[in-house]
């Protein structure tokens, strides 16, 4: 199976590469349209800021390529947010796969720090991504912006308010958390995506 990781100006891409290699995959990090289109799985990872990453995708024509992919695609963190319609971060129009708008966390109490950084549980999971879990598992999050609950929500997390921890629509999957940094739980989620 050929797995590709979308190469763009976001951080944290190497962590995903390392995690997939630990599972025995041999991913290619690429921005080549042909390679991306011909892969069995595409991962769209990253850590970064919405406006500058969207601009980069647009300049390198990766926006249209990603939108046109037909194999299973997994967006991670900023990758998930960029797959939504719009982000409050930099007032940015995004790829529009998911009918949801990304919002900034607005703390209502002092102990609710932004970014949310650390391990939180995923609840109400309904997707093959979460097969094999019998209780709400902890996964690792680092983010200041979130996707509200919507039709595509396949897992929820509670921080300040309940929001989407993961999304699914057609061939597009996405997680707000970092499966590549979420220990054995994260490894299971990546395995489920590759299955």
């Amino acid at each position, binding site marked *: 199976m050929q797995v590709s990781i979308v190469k763009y100006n976001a*951080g*944290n891409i*190497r*962590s995903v590469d*390392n*995690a997939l*290699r*630990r599972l025995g995959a041999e991913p290619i990090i690429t921005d080549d349209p042909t390679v991306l289109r011909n892969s069995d799985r595409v991962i769209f990872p990253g*850590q*970064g*800021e919405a406006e500058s990453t969207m601009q980069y995708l647009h300049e390198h024509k990766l926006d249209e390529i990603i939108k046109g992919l037909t194999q299973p695609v997994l967006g991670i963190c900023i990758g998930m947010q960029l797959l939504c319609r719009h982000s409050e971060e930099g007032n940015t129009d995004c790829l529009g796969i998911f009918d949801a708008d990304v919002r900034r966390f607005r703390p209502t109490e*002092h*102990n609710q*720090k*932004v*970014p*949310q*950084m*650390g*391990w*939180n*549980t995923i609840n109400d999971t309904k997707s093959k991504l979460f097969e094999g879990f019998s209780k709400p598992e*902890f996964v*690792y999050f*680092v983010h200041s912006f979130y996707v509200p609950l919507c039709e595509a929500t396949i897992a929820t997390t*509670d*921080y300040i308010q309940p929001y989407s921890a993961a999304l699914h629509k057609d061939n597009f999957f996405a997680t707000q958390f*970092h499966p*590549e*940094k*979420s*220990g*054995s739980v*994260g*490894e299971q989620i990546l395995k489920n995506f590759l299955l």
Partner: protein
Amino acid sequence: MLAKRIIPCLDIKDGTTVKGTNFVGLREAGDPIELGKLYSQQGADELVYLDITASHEGRKTFTQLVTRIAEEINIPFTVGGGINELQDVDRLLNAGADKISINSAAIRHPELINDIANHFGSQVCVVAIDAKQTANGWKCFLNGGRLETERDLFQWAREANDRGAGEILFTSMDHDGVKQGYANEALSRLSAELSIPVIASGGAGVKEHFRDAFTVGHADAALAASVFHFGEIPIPELKKYLAQYVQIRL
């Protein structure tokens, strides 16, 4: 609910893990990658690797080590020690570190915090502060605790927060290595005054000390070294105990 984090800290010199008592006198504590993997399996929430070699050669070895850690460890890890400029940050993040921690360089050149936040995002920037209670209040120290500065702990932490730090790692030098508990009063004040997470460091000796750092000091995470390295407090046992008091990932 977001869980409180337990973070083993590994001091690295010439490729092996060491731990000082009150910043002097080093004792070997094992292979850094094996130890990191073991902690990860035992339930550590993150790891911190601190490079305590200062030489150019040592720095190269450490970067290679970071690459290997990133290949083998499946939880987030922070690296620190000897980071003086943006280029160092770039090198370590490229090697696969999730976050970097800056200490003396941030006090000498506070704008480094802004630069890191702007280039790589606040989430990668941990500002470590070594401080000690003096006749004039809590003062920050440089160079691994060898040089006292005029900087007040609370003012500096606030400034680092405002400049774009993602977390504050606060080590009380009075408490470090003596195993009598964390500096909970100062921690609690930091936690109340800052809008970013605070990591408690220095003083863990028994399980109750971790509990108090969370319940009294209101820390978001607690870091320790020797109690883990020498097996005095097994992480699974610690987390089971803490889960009675605070949200913990089990």
